């Protein structure tokens, strides 16, 4: 079959991913007049955003009028241990309220304050109650609102369609060299190939969590966007920073890793060890001492009087809480199934819990036989989010590859070394919109001189995609993709987890070498029609590449900061606080690491960080 026989579509903007960032990007591109397509691996409305529970952080000041973008900006930077791209964090804090209000214009039904405005709840690391929410199913509300709005606008959606390669202009010289010209993929249902001709691609593919054994992430989180970007010549930053959410379910096995929202703590829940001690008071770091309560009495008063009391230590940023839980379990003070206790039953009445946390109530009742209004939950850390991602321009979300944009979890920089809860949903909206708009503008600017899709590249992509079948047919391949994935997950969990050492990271790289070698010989049974084994075989190289990036960067950064903790370098080092680790691929496909200076906070914003 000649490549010209493949199904082809021409667009101005192709958005890969249909979670919050992808949908918001597509809506923005469409609003800017671009012919826009959304391409997603699952059905529309099933993306990982749907799993977000607690809320969208936005300094609207509906509950605490002292809140404003400056406070939100400061919280975000301090939560990320100052390694954030300051301009992204500033834009995010400034634009988030507008983006939330926009959702209301499109039909979202947020919980209300007594005055009828959007209610806002407490979360870790946030000075004020600022998360707009709908019970504990905020992500569902957000994705449904964006999905319904995108449908109303008539944006084309290619569901259950996986992009395996980005296409670039192969013409030499004339400035177009190396620019994005489209994307290549396959329909999951039929296995047929599809070619998009487009001068811009917005990556909104989410994260990488499926490379870990215990994760809150779904099968889709295989680091596709990270890998596509690298292979197209873009750079990744901050890949050493992986967020382990402190509270995932630990039992029963069917739900190990499933998220338990931070709202449980925001709404009054506390963490206890097997001795009944509220242990977080023993883990308050120097960095947050001035703003954290040092007695249970003060912590408990804070929920109703924020002016005269400091925040409970259970609401420290996620990296701090996850490490503390990890230490308690290691010290032998864990719960029966290897977690710690999260208790809201003894702190709030049953009606309040059911009203504020209906999904959690349902989830524990249905899957663990635990009534959270009557007994404590068992929780432990779960791989939840990657701070690292495609290096982008703060204003435009553009990568260094002309025509390639990234927004949401797949983009890096915004969250520094650790993301605050609630800042993800707002990130999706703020930078999804910016990416969509700027991609549309770019397409308009180069109208008339669009890069052309290179037929040779399409042919290579097609050959590559069917390789697992030819390996099987030629009897060369005997590696089961499911087995390989499992081994990768075990390796990353064991060697590149919450606590890392040079020895383990070097071992991880050796294991990755071996897995990559075996990954050359993946074989799949059956045919191309809706074949999950084949789909996994095509996702696996992305997972391996991204895992490599994490291991390489983690070994290089010889300090502990945010979502990167080194047992052999436990201190946070000021020198490292000025450095980003950037990763690219060389011509042979090897990962190349570079140290580059972190953009410096301008002087006019410095005073925000001077007061304690």
């Amino acid at each position, binding site marked *: 079959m000649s490549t010209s026989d493949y199904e082809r579509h021409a667009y101005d903007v192709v958005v890969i991913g249909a979670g919050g960032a992808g949908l918001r990007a597509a809506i923005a591109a469409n609003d800017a007049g671009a012919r826009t397509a959304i391409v997603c691996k699952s059905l529309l409305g*099933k993306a990982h955003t749907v799993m977000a529970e607690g809320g969208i952080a936005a300094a609207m000041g509906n509950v605490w009028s002292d809140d404003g973008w400056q406070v939100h900006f400061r919280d975000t930077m301090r939560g990320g241990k100052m390694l954030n791209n300051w301009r992204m964090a500033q834009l995010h804090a400034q634009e988030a309220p507008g983006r939330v209000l926009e959702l209301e214009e499109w039909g979202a039904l947020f919980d209300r304050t007594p005055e009828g405005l959007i209610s806002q709840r407490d979360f870790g690391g946030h000075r004020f109650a600022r998360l707009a929410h709908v019970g504990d199913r905020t992500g569902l509300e957000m994705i449904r609102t964006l999905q319904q709005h995108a449908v109303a606008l008539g944006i084309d959606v290619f569901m259950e369609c996986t992009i395996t390669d980005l296409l670039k202009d192969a013409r030499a010289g004339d400035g177009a060299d190396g620019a994005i010209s489209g994307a290549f993929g396959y329909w999951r249902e039929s296995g047929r190939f599809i070619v998009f001709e487009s001068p811009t691609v917005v990556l909104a593919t989410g994260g990488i969590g499926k490379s870990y054994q215990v994760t809150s992430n779904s099968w889709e989180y295989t680091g596709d966007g990270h890998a596509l970007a690298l292979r197209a010549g873009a750079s990744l930053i901050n890949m050493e920073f992986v967020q382990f959410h402190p509270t995932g379910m630990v039992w029963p096995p069917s739900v190990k890793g*499933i998220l338990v929202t931070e709202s449980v703590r925001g709404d009054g829940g506390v963490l206890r060890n097997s001795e009944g001690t509220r242990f977080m008071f023993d883990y308050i770091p120097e960095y947050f001492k001035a703003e954290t309560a040092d007695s249970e009495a003060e912590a408990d008063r804070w929920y109703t009087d924020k002016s005269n009391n400091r925040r409970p230590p259970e609401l420290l940023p996620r990296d701090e809480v996850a490490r503390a839980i990890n230490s308690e379990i290691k010290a032998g003070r864990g719960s029966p199934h290897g977690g710690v206790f999260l208790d809201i039953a003894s702190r709030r009445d049953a009606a309040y819990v059911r009203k504020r946390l209906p999904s959690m109530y349902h989830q524990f009742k249905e899957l663990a036989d635990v009534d959270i209004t009557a007994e404590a939950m068992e929780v432990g850390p779960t791989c939840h989010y990657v701070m690292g991602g495609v290096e982008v321009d703060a204003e435009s979300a553009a990568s260094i590859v002309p025509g390639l944009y990234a927004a949401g979890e797949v983009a890096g920089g915004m969250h520094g070394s650790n993301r605050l809860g609630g800042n993800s949903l707002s990130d999706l909206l703020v930078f999804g919109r910016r990416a969509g708009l700027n991609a549309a503008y770019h397409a308009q600017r180069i109208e008339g001189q669009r890069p052309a899709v290179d037929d040779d590249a399409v042919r290579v992509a097609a050959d590559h995609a069917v390789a697992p079948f030819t390996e099987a047919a030629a009897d060369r391949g005997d590696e089961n993709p499911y087995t390989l994935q499992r081994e990768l997950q075990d390796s990353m969990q064991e060697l590149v987890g919450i606590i890392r050492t040079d020895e383990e990271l070097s071992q991880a790289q050796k294991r990755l070498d071996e897995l990559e070698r075996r990954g050359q010989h993946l074989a799949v049974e059956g045919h191309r029609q809706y074949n999950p084994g084949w789909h996994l075989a095509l996702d696996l190289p992305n997972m391996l590449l991204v895992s490599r990036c994490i291991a390489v960067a983690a070994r290089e950064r010889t300090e502990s900061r945010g979502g990167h903790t080194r047992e052999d370098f436990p201190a946070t080092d000021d020198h490292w606080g000025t450095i980003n680790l950037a990763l690219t691929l060389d011509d042979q496909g090897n990962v190349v690491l570079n140290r580059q200076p972190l953009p410096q906070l301008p002087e006019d914003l410095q005073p925000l960080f001077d007061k304690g």
Partner: protein
Amino acid sequence: MAYELSMRIWRGDRDGGDLTDYSVEVEEGEVVLDAIHRVQATQAGDMAVRWNCKAGKCGSCSAEVNGRPRLMCMTRLSDFEPTETITVTPMRAFPVVRDLVTDVSYNYEKARELPSFAPGPPDADGKRRMMQPDVERGQEFRKCIECFLCQDTCHVVRDHDENKPAFAGPRFFLRFAELDMHPLDTHDRRSLAQGAAGLGMCNITKCCTEVCPEGIHITDNAIIPMKERVADRKYDPLVWLGNKIGRRDTRTEP
């Protein structure tokens, strides 16, 4: 506590298929989707199944377990005897694509036919105010995870493909009701619900409510109130007279 579970899983495609027997080791505390995944990873790498969140939040893994429409991720093995054979088949109301995956595009087409949210102007200060009890009615319906089990079980379309063009189904009656009860919405979708969406074809047997994994009271809180509002409009003599002499409802049909 591990034991060997006997399963019968429907394997096939548009051209037909059959139940295939599998025996798979499972553990205490697992759900049907875990067993399916283990079969896939160890015995049938190409077995097609949809899933995403594995926590009852995304509505992807809908299927029929022992003939009953269920989310596989929320169906615990402990609900069955260890010696019992568990049979898993694809949703019956939709055309099979392969194995447990069905073509649910019917639902996405119906979603496109529905006029979207259309708010009135904001308050004088530019803000929008809604009271909590007023948003709660719509919030119940917006818990819907679009698993389409209600559509699958609804007898109007379950074995009657011919009704599909004229019938949007419970999931979309829910959406009609949600928009109708939205404090800010200005459209009147009543005659559309009754006409093009086929609300009148529903004879409130409540099957949809029974299978809803979110526990939404689809029949009592959405369909019946919608039917009543449609009836008000159709049979209220004042509305009839108003329409006759040219006065319009302040809310206009799209």
